[in-house]
């Protein structure tokens, strides 16, 4: 009962935030929503299937560059088309990458994903004509459901229509992901995480299911990346750099990867925390490093783990 009331209050607060919160606070929620979508995917791979990717920023960057390329070079401004194209492209790229990576587990899987991530970073950095090199490519203001919202300036657009668009996409992504993790497929992934040999013994195609999880995670990553690039207005190679992948893992650990909504909490808390600490000290990276160590050592369940009375399945 309390959960439902709190949940309804949180949703109401999110819906009313454009009226209640300051424009700056709203602009901070936008990357948090985008990261939350990408992390829901990453957590299917990590929290549910037990595969830790250190190269997931590859797909976030892929989504961002899809938005950049379509809006700047192809004249496609419909965000629906951009999101679908990002998802489709991520699936195409994840097909060979995933097929290779899921042959391995643990550190080998992590290192392979890291290698592919850095390979993509080098591609973005070196292929000037296609990617704009170090300078990247601009992301123009998209149309939402056919509407340009020409009467709004960029801040008005971001904190109004785009805010609700991103929130709706996050809710949709969460519902889809909940359906996935609660399905027999999700149950099989958890079985693979706990004991792949046993899972295989009872008829689960371990490698194939890991591959499916990889594909889904990639699609979520790219959709998040496309949304992430709109407020920034630029897709640049640093989005694919390994430190960005590290940040994604940090957000998961912070929120709690054992919990379905851990990624969402992790993304929101990370963004607001980074915003506050960056303004306070030039040594914010040190603070975050120390925080990561504290979380891993003392609170391995993350923020939601702190509050949980029982460990969810």
């Amino acid at each position, binding site marked *: 009962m*309390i*959960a*439902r009331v*709190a*949940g*309804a*209050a*949180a949703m109401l*607060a*999110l819906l*009313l*935030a454009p009226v209640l*919160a*300051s*424009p*700056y*606070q709203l*602009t901070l929620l936008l*990357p948090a929503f985008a990261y939350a979508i990408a992390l829901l995917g990453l957590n299917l791979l990590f929290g549910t299937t037990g595969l830790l990717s250190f190269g997931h920023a590859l797909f976030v960057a892929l989504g961002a560059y899809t938005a950049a390329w379509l809006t700047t070079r192809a004249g496609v401004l419909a965000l629906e088309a951009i999101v679908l194209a990002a998802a489709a492209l991520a699936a195409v790229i994840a097909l060979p990458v995933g097929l290779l990576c899921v042959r391995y587990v643990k550190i080998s899987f992590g290192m392979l994903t890291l290698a592919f991530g850095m390979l993509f970073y080098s591609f973005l*950095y*070196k292929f*000037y004509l296609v990617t*704009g*090199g*170090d*300078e*990247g490519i*601009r992301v123009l203001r998209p149309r939402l459901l056919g509407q340009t919202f020409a009467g709004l*300036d*960029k*801040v008005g657009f971001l904190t109004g229509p785009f805010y609700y668009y991103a929130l709706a996409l996050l809710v949709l992504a969460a519902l889809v992901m909940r359906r996935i993790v609660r399905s027999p497929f999700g149950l099989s992934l958890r079985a693979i995480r706990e004991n792949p040999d046993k899972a295989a013994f009872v008829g689960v195609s371990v490698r194939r299911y890991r591959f499916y999880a990889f594909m889904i995670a990639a699609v979520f990553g790219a959709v998040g990346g496309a949304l*992430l690039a709109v*407020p*920034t*207005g*630029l897709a*640049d190679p*640093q*989005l694919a750099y390994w430190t960005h992948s590290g940040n994604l893992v940090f957000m998961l650990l912070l929120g*709690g990867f054992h*919990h*379905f*909504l*851990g990624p*969402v*909490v992790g993304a*929101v*808390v990370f963004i*607001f925390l*980074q915003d506050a600490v*960056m*303004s306070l000290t*030039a040594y*914010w*990276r040190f603070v975050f490093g120390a925080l990561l160590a504290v979380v891993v050592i003392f609170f391995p369940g993350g*923020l*939601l783990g702190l*509050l949980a009375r029982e460990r*969810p*399945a």
Partner: protein
Amino acid sequence: MRTTRRQFFTLTGGALAAASLRLDVAPALAQAAPVKLGILAAKAGVLAPVGESGLRGVQWAAERINAAGGILGRKLELVIEEESSPKDTVERFRKLALHDKVDAVSGAISTGVGLALGPVAEEMKTIWLSWDATTQKGVEETMPKPKYSFRSTDNECEAVMASILTGRHWKGKFKTVAGINPDYSYGRDNWAAFLAIMKKYGMDVQVVSELWPKLGATDFTAHVAALAQAKPDLIFSCHWAGDTPIFMKQAHGAGLTKSTKFVLTTGGGVHESLKKEFTPEGAILGYNTFYFEHARASALAREFVRWHQEKFKEWPNYESDHGYFTIVAYKTAVERAARAAGSKWPSQDAIIQALEGVEAESLSGPRRYREDHIMEATFFQGITTHRNKAYDFVTIDPVETMTTRQIQKPSGVGLYDWINGWKV
């Protein structure tokens, strides 16, 4: 799962309730309230020393302006944020504009960040005075006619000046060239400009090696080996960061400094680390827009150099001057606009109008913003010498100066059209 969701909603609900409180409501601006200037300075990684240098120039300018009573009686207050990745820096810019409600933003060095900030400054309707980061792409494609963005000098100024000096000193004395430049737009822009000018000057140079180490590289073994094998008569490099002395040290170790000519367009960015033991005499070395030991330096420059040396035990570089100029240019523009507005604090549009064409005394002499919002300044380069007893690093003698009217493309003309139009 139910427990988790409950706790999530409790947590986010609380956070959002707290976040929903408006924290940014400011009282009506009083005439004597401070002028808030947002500063974006790099503080980590390869950009950090240059970001710190720019910040010192800004802080010195603010201290002096405040000591003299501020701008029209209003003290300057600096709100300092970090320049990092384009995404994070865009968020910092938005924070300065929306949350801190600054009057203008000064700063940014990286070209990628510059490209991202330009459109954001226009969208946020916030004056942005960039320290650096002016690529051709930024000028020609991304923001051909900005209103709120005021940019630095073009990326290629140093390459243009160094190329002119190369022609002046060494025409006919070299045939083969190698380029070793940082792998990003600044490196590529400068190398392309150098080759275009060599061609324009009719110096039939042959490129024997083109190397692109990563910006901030800490090992040049492979690159130096490639250069040693290519045996160029001249090596062109626009390295400006901590990687410059590492490269020179390794190049010296491989014997490249014995007979090869060096053109180091921007090495002055880390001039103190270019020690005599591995940096040869007779190389062309550029200091961008500020040379700390210029014989004809103004009293202002001498005072700054003295302050910098006493406070930081270092001799300053050009970024301090870029930072300093943005602040005094803003002050001059406000005062100029105020004169037209009957001594009242002028509107932002009036300040922008006054910034266009504004001239102010920088540490390296007079500087101005062109009407198209590009900075005009004087550049310093020269031939390296070991004949300076006070230092263990190279300095330049003679010191050559050129203004941007000589080495920067004029408004509305493409760089290579401009170079090809030179009368040689």
